[in-house]
């Protein structure tokens, strides 16, 4: 359905350059929900926006059904934004916001009424303004707007992070129900790993602009194979109060890893090789891709406090 080839975005900041997305290649099948996780600044949103053509890539390609990006595509790809307060025009009524894409593309169906029904908003919402609605209801408006043109592919950029927990469940259920009903394909960007497990069929973990691990959702959570994924999963507090955080992780790089693995400076298992040679993404079994020299080998987690020095660096 959608495919990228060595997609790259480099920002120039003064004389320096920042590689937000570094040669990402992946493919999404129709009906898949790819969960995209990673820390802030890892390039998740930049990637999502490049897929929709909202940001021009520095190099690489986005292919939609095998074709290069063309002007007529936007109607088939849509976005649901993070902030339901900033992404709706405060001077437009809900009816106008949802109807705008229909007007621009001269479509008669679906009607605004039908779209309101679809996302569970009352018909009376049509004449009202965004400020009259709660965060959850506004996010429903954003979803209705995204669905107006019958898209095939939707980028959901942290659609629930700004909402209260009890409301998050409502929106996630709605997104899943719509996905089933219309066979939609989602890229679901989030930092809540439990929610990503709930919603996704496949998960990609992003670190400094690269996919460092991609796997089917069950595989990723059962056997996370990149040390960074392990760190992420072990950092989450659990209901039983037993968080197994890996330590120590030093945020600022001590050694330059240019040319090596980008995660090496923070990795408790890094060996000399990790600083010299960049690991290639390889399949360690049924579509479970990991970019780590030692992935698939005996789990180094059994000795989580091994210091880099002891590993001969």
């Amino acid at each position: 359905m959608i495919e990228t080839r060595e997609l790259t975005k480099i920002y120039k900041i003064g004389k320096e350059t920042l590689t937000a997305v570094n040669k990402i290649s992946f493919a999404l099948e129709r009906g898949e929900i790819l969960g995209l996780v990673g820390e802030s600044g890892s390039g998740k949103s930049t990637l999502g926006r490049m897929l929709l053509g909202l940001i021009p890539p520095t190099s690489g390609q986005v292919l939609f059904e095998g074709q290069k990006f063309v002007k007529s595509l936007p109607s088939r790809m849509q976005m649901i934004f993070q902030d339901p307060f900033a992404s709706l025009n405060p001077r437009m009524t809900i009816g106008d916001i949802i109807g705008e894409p229909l007007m621009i593309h001269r479509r008669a169906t679906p009607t605004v009424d039908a779209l309101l029904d679809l996302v569970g908003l009352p018909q009376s919402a049509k004449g009202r303004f965004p400020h009259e609605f709660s965060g959850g209801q506004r996010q429903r408006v954003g979803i209705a707007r995204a669905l107006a043109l019958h898209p095939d592919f939707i980028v959901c950029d942290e659609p629930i992070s700004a909402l209260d927990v009890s409301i998050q469940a409502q929106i996630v259920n709605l997104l899943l129900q719509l996905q089933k009903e219309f066979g939609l394909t989602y890229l679901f960007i989030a930092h809540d790993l439990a929610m990503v497990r709930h919603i996704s069929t496949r998960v990609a973990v992003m670190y400094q602009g690269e996919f460092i691990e991609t796997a089917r959702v069950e595989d990723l959570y059962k056997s996370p194979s990149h040390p960074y994924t392990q760190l992420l999963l072990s950092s989450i507090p659990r209901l039983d109060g037993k968080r197994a955080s890996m330590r120590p992780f030093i945020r600022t790089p001590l050694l330059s890893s240019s040319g090596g693995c980008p995660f090496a400076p923070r990795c408790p298992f890094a060996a000399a090789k990790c600083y010299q040679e960049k690991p290639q993404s390889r399949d360690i079994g049924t579509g479970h891709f990991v970019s780590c020299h030692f992935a698939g080998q005996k789990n180094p987690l059994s000795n989580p406090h091994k210091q880099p020095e002891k590993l001969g660096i």
Partner: protein
Amino acid sequence: MTLLQVDNLRVSFSLYGKEFQAVRGISFEVNSGEAVGIVGESGCGKSAAVQSILRLLPASKIEGKIRFEGVDLLEKSEREMGDIRGLKIGMVFQDPMASLNPTMTIGAQVAEGLIFHGIASKREAKELALQLLREVEIQRPEERLNQYPHELSGGMRQRVLIAIALAAKPRLLIADEPTTALDVTVQAQILDVLKKRSAATGLLLITHDLTVVAEMCERVLVFYAGKIVEQGLVSQILSQPRHPYTQMLLRSIPHLDRPRTERLQTIAGTPPNLLAPPQGCSFAKRCPYAMPICKKEPPFIGSAACWRELPLFMNDEPV
């Protein structure tokens, strides 16, 4: 020993000429050395409740009793409160960018409280500030002393705020959503620092994340619409919640340590309008177990404020 005892606290604001009842009669206590969590959704009154403890809400009407080490804080003068804020009760705010002064160096901001409370001279304060930064595990603290907030990452700034709150060795530490704005890996580090550094003090931790409470606290207060609907031991409430709101809240979140479910439970509707709070139980309108009495009379206050807790109503049919 009871450090903080809050009795029937009510906080209200005047809004559009009406009374907005943010906190509607809550009672709880914090013992020294104990960590108590407050959970609830936005607008449930959790921040208003803790800010009124330090009397940080000038435009509000506060009623009830807030006893700190046996003395009612509501009877203190503004000047006397100055000796309590920071010195006896420290506070860590949610937004690390907005609560640091962008025009002052980190060192000056950590030292400020120490000098203000007369704990240290200017020269000593600088030395103490350095030590405090070390205690909250800031890398290269000597360098950080002379830097400004914008030069630090979010997690680093939150550590500075914790250092400031702990500077005068307060008896009680209040932390209002200290990790909400942070990435999970950074959150884990901040929680570790908080746990280590607050072991000797009482800790009142506000969060909307039940898993953070599970990790940090012994007891928890569940807030809903300005009231405490359930309180008790964390181990009990998270495994066997009694109030329908707590039960539904726990089922509405996916948990990594539980099997995947097809659908998340949702709580239909929205919290009540606190300009005109409902007569009966504030959750009755959204509660699947609500009985006629729930809409008429507020439930008695117990460890779970719910009419079903009374044997008389336990088996009544919901309407």
